[in-house]
């Protein structure tokens, strides 16, 4: 099985405003990007399950020129508040690293 971390040169997450998290998957080349960009394992439904959000609100973008897949999803709770654990959303990408990709 190919893990997402094995075909990306960089994976990061960050707040996109107080109500959204955005994740950027920088694939390590055009070939791996072409093979995996549309993999359901990194599709809206899979991401929704992973982060406990509504799949209809998960957005996926292909940025072909950069070999990047971008995933954006609403935070379960707005940034801040009494139960915040990751104020800037900077560690939210970690559960994606070990996702098994098809192909």
């Amino acid at each position, binding site marked *: 099985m190919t893990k997402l971390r094995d075909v990306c040169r960089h994976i990061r997450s960050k*707040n*996109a405003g*107080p*109500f959204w998290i*955005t994740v950027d998957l920088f694939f390590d080349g055009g070939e791996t990007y072409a093979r995996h960009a549309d993999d359901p394992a990194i599709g809206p439904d899979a991401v929704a399950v992973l982060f406990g959000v509504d799949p209809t609100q998960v957005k996926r973008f292909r940025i072909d020129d950069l070999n990047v897949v971008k995933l954006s999803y609403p935070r379960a709770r*707005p*940034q801040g*508040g009494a139960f915040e654990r990751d104020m800037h959303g900077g*560690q939210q990408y970690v559960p994606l690293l070990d996702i098994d990709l098809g192909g």
Partner: protein
Amino acid sequence: MTRANETRILVPVGALGAGVRADEVEAGLALSPHAIALDAGSTDSGPAYLASGKSKYSRAAVKRDLTVLMAARAKAGIPLLIGSCGTSGCDMALDWTLETVLEVAREQGGRPRIAVLYSEQDKSVLRAKAAAGAVKPLAPMGPLEEEALDACSHIVALLGPEPYIAALDGGADIVLGGRTTDTAVLAAAALRRGGHAGAAWHAAKTAECGGQCTLNPTYPGVMVSVDSEGFSIAPLSTANRCTPQTVSAHMLYENADPFRLTEPGGLLDVADARYAAVDERTVRVTGSRWEPAPYTLKLEGAGAGPFQTMMLVGIEDPAVLADVDAFVGRMQHALERRLARTLAHEVAATIDISLRPYGWNAVSGRPPPQGAAPPREIGLMFVATAPTQALATEAAKICNPFFFHLPAGEGMEMPSYAFPFSPAEIERGQVFAFHLNHVVSVESPFELMRTRWVESAIGADHD
């Protein structure tokens, strides 16, 4: 290469107070910019700054950057535009920045004419707007509720470029903006001079974090040049470079949608933008589009909630680390039982106790993978959340003996875990939260803002 009708904007750093470099600004001035523009705020660091009105950056750091930038502005005779002053851009944060600007002006002996653009919102005005159907939620938020307005201590509307353009038309040397979209303050000077709208907005979006769009973001400054067809961007430092990839990749950063960006009065669409290297350090961008739309202002609102008191212990005891989840579960149960037995039921019910084992799963809060090896140590954080600071601290003190001494298992001898501080409890203050994610429709870009003119030389001001 200078193109016809070019507007050059020197963006010295991604945020005022983050540290401009005087040598970079000097190098930028040699290229004859038409304006210096930068942003001073963001919601990125959380709701505390808007809810409290206090700046994220220290006054000394902000003053130091202002000293460099105001001297450069005076020397070049060009305007200085600063958006989202004091982090949140609320009135209190804007006035705090203005005071610092006036102090620097006095020290430098200058007489800048200052326009101050206020964008804090009155709740009664927003209630009327909402009643008229002019306030709409942005996903994932629902319609504006009265409780959400009540919960906010400060509400700001994100200004567009028009108030900056009007301030420049009015002869402002320095424009200090309340909350503004990051892009609007950087796009204003180019839009005023008739630059290509798509290029001006896209250039502004690219430069809003300063050197973030370059190969080496430790060099904070960039120069954007907007003309009638596109824009070019290069770092201020000759030791740094922009490449087509670093520039196009910046549209990904902190953006939910990498192609389309909603702004006051329109939408920036970069789906067909083309990025080309002009030389080793400069990138040319064309094909950015601006689609005008009915004018809306985004609202941000935050307020203070309950109070927290925390404690931290370090644990290296192998018996605890062999099953951290079980230990934390038993600890949670023991602390809640202790609170229930010590306080009246209705008081205990208002307190939340959260245990977060750093070194195990505190960051995510999710169960670690099956079979994960025991950590070498954990820092166990205790957070009591309660309606008052006194009660949160009372809860911490009540829990202290158990938090300090709970054995790893039944019948084991009483351990003492490693407190780093005395007293063990730390009063963390209030919890802050964002409550608004809405846009309000306006008749004009000026409807929900006020401009104040300040003549720094004589200390007088007028509306």
